[in-house]
């Protein structure tokens, strides 16, 4: 499956959280990381809408920085949420592989 096809399956919010799992990151770096991860080319309009939603949900927060680009990072809730979603995905993958008899 191509990266482009993967991006259709995975929620963009999950992509942002996964991109932030590696550590604090600012908008431009996130845009590039998400493209690298999934092939999805998002713009700043999309990204900051997602960041606002995730921040309001308490899943990410800003990191104080002297740079003009303020990085964001996962909160404890965000990390727990991402782990839960990845575990769900793992279970789904296991079931799918079992039903398709993939070793």
């Amino acid at each position, binding site marked *: 499956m191509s990266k482009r096809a993967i991006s259709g399956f995975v929620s963009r919010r999950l992509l942002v959280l996964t991109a932030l799992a590696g550590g604090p990151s600012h908008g431009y770096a996130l845009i590039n990381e998400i493209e690298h991860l999934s092939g999805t080319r998002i713009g700043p309009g999309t990204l900051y809408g997602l960041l606002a939603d995730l921040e309001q949900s308490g899943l990410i927060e800003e990191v104080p920085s002297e740079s003009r680009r*303020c990085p964001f990072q996962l909160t404890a809730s965000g990390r727990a949420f991402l782990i839960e979603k990845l575990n769900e995905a793992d279970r789904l993958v296991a079931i799918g592989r079992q039903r398709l008899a993939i070793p």
Partner: protein
Amino acid sequence: MASEPRQLGRMLQVALRVYPKWWRDRFEEYANEDLESLLADGRMPLALAANLAFGAVSVRLSRWSTDLRRSIVGLAVLMLTLVAFQTVHVATPSSPYGGAAAPQNSQFAVVAVCPMGAGTTLMISHRTADHFPAICPSRNNRRSS
């Protein structure tokens, strides 16, 4: 916004102004930085402006209550149905040359433009300044120093 003058295209600046005030206070400075980098990477300004415009509409709609959004969507569907009915099923007078005459453009325009105008007015007049009052702590420090 206390950001320095930027060399962004006018199209992008206009697109950024479509966002609500709370969003601009919160994210405009960062978005400006990202836009400059993306333009330097060779991204098309038109695509970025379109992305910003869609993002602005999405941000504005996301702050509305579910009931209001449903009402607007319902109204839009109703109006689109009326437009479709108007253009497809309403008989148009015969042309003196034998074929069908042009659709009744003035009525079509009224039916099509009114809901768009009402929606745009609602969107622009909606005040969401009390959302996300906090800004980046580092920006707070910079401004106070």
